[in-house]
C-alpha cells in the first residue's frame, strides 16, 4: 500500500529530480571551468557548499510540491473513507523524504565524481552529505508533522522559513572573501570523528521516528 501511494507521488518527484540533476550538472560544469582559471581550493569549498543547498532544495522542494498538490485536490479527505490507515499514509510521506534524500546524496556523488573529482572533495563528500542529509531529513520530518497537524496551507510559511535558514546557514559562507573562511565549517566536518558523524545521523533518525509516530497519532485523531 505504501508503495502504491508512493507511485502516485512519484510523478511530482521525477519532475523535481530532473530539475535537481540539471542544476547539479550545470553547477559542476560551470564551476569546473572556473577552477582552471582561478584557484582549485576555491572550487572545492563552493562546490561542496552548493551540494548541500541542492540536497535541501530537492527534499524540501518535493515536500512543498507534493503537499501543494494533495491540498489542492483534498487528497486526505478523498482517502479518508477508503480502507487505508493513517499509518500507511504517513509512512508513505516519510518514505518519500527518505527516498528523496538518498537519491539526492547518490546523485550528487555520481555527478560530482563525473564532473569535478579532486582530493578535497573525495575526502569529505560522504561525511558532508550524510550530515546534510540527516539535517534535511529531520527538518522535513518536523515539517510533515506540522502538515499533518495544521494542514499544508497554514504550515507553508513556516516550512519556507526553515528551508531558507537551512540553506543559508553554510551556504552563506560562499559569499565570504577568504577561501579559509568559506571552508571553515567544512574543515570542522572533516575533523569530526566517524562516531560523531554516526551519532549525529542517528540523532536525526531518532527525530524522524519521533515525528513519524507523532504524525500517525495526529492523523488518526484528525477530523476530516
Amino acid at each position, binding site marked *: *500500500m505504501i508503495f*502504491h501511494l508512493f507511485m*502516485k507521488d512519484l510523478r511530482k518527484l521525477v519532475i523535481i529530480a530532473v530539475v535537481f540533476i540539471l542544476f547539479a550538472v550545470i553547477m559542476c560544469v560551470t564551476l569546473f571551468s572556473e577552477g582552471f582559471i582561478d584557484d582549485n581550493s576555491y572550487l572545492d569549498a563552493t562546490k561542496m557548499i552548493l551540494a548541500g543547498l541542492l540536497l535541501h532544495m530537492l527534499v524540501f522542494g518535493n515536500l512543498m510540491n507534493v503537499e501543494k498538490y494533495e491540498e*489542492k*485536490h*483534498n*487528497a486526505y*479527505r*478523498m*482517502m*479518508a*473513507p*477508503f*480502507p*487505508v*490507515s493513517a499509518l500507511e499514509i504517513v509512512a508513505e510521506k516519510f518514505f518519500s523524504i527518505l527516498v528523496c534524500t538518498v537519491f539526492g546524496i547518490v546523485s550528487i556523488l555520481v555527478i560530482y565524481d563525473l564532473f569535478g573529482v579532486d582530493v578535497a572533495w573525495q575526502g569529505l563528500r560522504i561525511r558532508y552529505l550524510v550530515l546534510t542529509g540527516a539535517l534535511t531529513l529531520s527538518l522535513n520530518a518536523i515539517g510533515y508533522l506540522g502538515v499533518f497537524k495544521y494542514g499544508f496551507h497554514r504550515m507553508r510559511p513556516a516550512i519556507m522559513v526553515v528551508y531558507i535558514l537551512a540553506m543559508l546557514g553554510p551556504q552563506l559562507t560562499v559569499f565570504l572573501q577568504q577561501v579559509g573562511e568559506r571552508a571553515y565549517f567544512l574543515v570542522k566536518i572533516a575533523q569530526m570523528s566517524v562516531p560523531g558523524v554516526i551519532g549525529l545521523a542517528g540523532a536525526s533518525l531518532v527525530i524522524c521516528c519521533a515525528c513519524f509516530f507523532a504524525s500517525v497519532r495526529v492523523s488518526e*485523531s484528525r*477530523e*476530516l
Partner: protein
Amino acid sequence: MCFVHILCIYDIYSEVDMEPILEIRDLKKEYREFTLDSISLSLDQGYIMGLIGPNGAGKTTTIKLIMNLIRAGGGEIYVFGKTYRHNEKQIKNDIGYVGEEQYFYEDRTVAWTGRFIERFFTRWDRNAFGAYLSEFELSGTKKIKELSKGMRVKLSLAIALSHDPKLIILDEPTAGLDPVVRRDVLDLLRKVTTDNSEKSVIISSHITDDITRIADTVTFLIGGRIALSGEKDDLLAEWKKVHFRTGALQNETIQSLLSVEENVFGSSGVTSEYSSIHGMLEEGIRRDDVRVENMGLDDILITFVRGGV
C-alpha cells in the same frame, strides 16, 4: 451428524442470532453551535434506512461519525459488530461511501482514478467498475475536472459499488442533481439492493421523495436528536391528517391530535396513531364531517420542524 447438517444448524442459528449491520448507542458530538445528542439506532442486513432532517439537523455529522471521519464525544458505534478501534481497515473495506462532496485528483482521468482506488479494496471488481462506467455513460479517458456534478456523483457511486460492499452509506447523494440523474441514482441503488439482499444502505437526504422511493425504514433527525424512527410503511400508515367539523369529534380524540389548527373545513390535526383512533373517526367519516388525508414523509417532517410535536 454429517457436515451438511452442521452447516444447516449453523445457518439457522446465525439467522436467529443475526447481529445488526450497524448499531449506534448514545452517540454524542458537540460543536460550538450544534450538538448531536444521544443518537441510538440500528440497521439490519438487507434494509435501506433513510435519514431525513432539515439542513443542520445532524445527518452529515451522524454519517461522518459512522464513517469514523470525525471523533465522537461519547457513545458507541458498531459496524458489522465491530468498533473502529483496531478494525478500521476491515470495516471500511466493506463500506461503500458517497459523501456530500466528491473529492478526486482533478487532473487525472476517470480510469486512473479507478486504478488508484482499486488497490485499497480487497474485493475490487474491475469488470463491475467498467460496467458501472458504461451504465452511467462515463468515459474512462475523461478528466475529473471535466465532469459535471451529476457525473461526479455517478463516479462516486460506481466506486462505492465496485468492491461489493455490505453497507452502502450515502450522504445527500442527490442534492443538486437534475431529476433524471436523481432517478438514475435511486434506481441503481434499488436494483443493487434488490439483486443482493445482503446489502444494507443508509441514505441521508432532505429530499423526502428520494427516501419515500427507496427506503424501508426512516429516521427523522431534528436539532441533533432522533425525533422519530420506524418502518416507512408503518409511519405512512399511522401518520394521517384529520380534518373535522366542529362537534364531529369527542374532546378526548381532538386532544390526541397534534398541531390542531382551524381551517376552511373546520379544524384539522395530525395523528401518529391512526389505527388506534380509526374507530372513533368512522362515524364522522360516514357523515362527511371527518376527512382523513394521507401524509407524506415531508408532511411529517414539517409537522416536527414547526414544533407541532
